[in-house]
């Protein structure tokens, strides 16, 4: 099985055989989580970072009165909490959305990478910068767009992110996210989520078959979502030493 992180990182330039082996070695300890199971609890201080190898996961915060805000959806190849290597205490949590296989990458191994593999260090750093860029893009849709544009923007983003790891074909991909989860991510009620998705379907922009989402009109969906993939920096080349 190809390694989703290696595939994703190689979009920025090829890795040496040694670098690829290091990534395989540090991600060899894996755990499987059931849907909705916590991968990294809020407030915990993990000794490893969680790299999603298969399945979908969320990052979330809870308000003091118990309301959940989903702040990210993670897909294979995403290091959900690479930041816990340096930030130590998790102010947010990571949970499985579907069954997830997760590599538990020891912080001591990450430290070795920063000591001995400068290019790997930079390309992993790049992934955390893209995570932050995704947060800024979400913040913009949350603050400045209506529900319809926001959800269209997200469906475009998922298409491109899943494409980089080979999980998108012919504008179609698995989207195992419920109305409730979309609502908790984008600050709208489930009734509103359903209304928006049904409108997008009625207008011929998307169709769904079970958990499979098909984008029928990619151009128009991008227009509705005011979407441009620039913030994902998918094919941006990184300089080697």
């Amino acid at each position, binding site marked *: 099985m190809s390694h989703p992180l290696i595939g994703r990182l190689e979009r920025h330039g090829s890795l040496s055989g040694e670098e690829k082996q290091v990534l395989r070695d540090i991600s060899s300890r894996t755990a499987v989580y059931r849907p909705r199971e916590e991968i990294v609890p809020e407030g915990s201080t993990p000794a490893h970072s969680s790299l999603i190898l298969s399945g979908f996961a969320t990052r979330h915060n809870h308000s003091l009165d118990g309301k959940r805000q989903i702040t990210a959806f993670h897909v294979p190849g995403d290091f959900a909490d690479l930041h816990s290597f340096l930030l130590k205490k998790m102010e947010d949590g990571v949970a499985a959305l579907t069954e997830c296989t997760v590599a538990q990458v020891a912080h001591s191994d990450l430290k070795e990478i920063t000591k001995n593999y400068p290019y790997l260090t930079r390309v992993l750093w790049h992934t955390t910068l893209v995570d932050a860029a995704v947060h800024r893009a979400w913040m913009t849709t949350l603050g400045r767009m*209506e*529900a319809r544009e926001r959800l269209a923007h997200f469906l475009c983003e998922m298409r491109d992110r899943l494409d980089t790891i080979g999980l998108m074909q012919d504008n179609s991909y698995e989207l195992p996210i*419920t*109305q*409730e989860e979309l609502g908790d991510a984008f600050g*709208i*009620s*489930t*009734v*509103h989520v*359903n*209304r928006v998705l*049904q*409108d997008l379907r*009625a207008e011929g922009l998307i169709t*769904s078959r079970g958990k499979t989402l098909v984008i029928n009109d990619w151009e128009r969906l991008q227009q509705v979502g005011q979407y441009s993939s620039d913030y994902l920096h998918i094919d941006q080349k990184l300089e080697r030493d």
Partner: protein
Amino acid sequence: MPRFYRHIRQGGRLIEDPEGIERPDLGAARAEALDGTRDLLAEAIRHGRDDWLTDAIVITDEAGQELLTIPFIEALPPRLYEALLAVLPSVTRSPSEP
């Protein structure tokens, strides 16, 4: 937990909820539907739209059995709701809290 489906009735058209939501009982599903409607109406009102005045949420169970119809205007603050109910003959009050 039972699953409730919250379809939207708009004139003769039904905007289906294919997924539904799990709630302990119909009362909780009704409260959730009213909250959801407020969120929907807030955006419509921001855009100056009133094309939802006679729309309603139709709650069904997993077998598709209709359990409750809640007019959208019931999600408005009480005095607005009563005033609109008086001038919209096609809209009928939903049965009180089950």
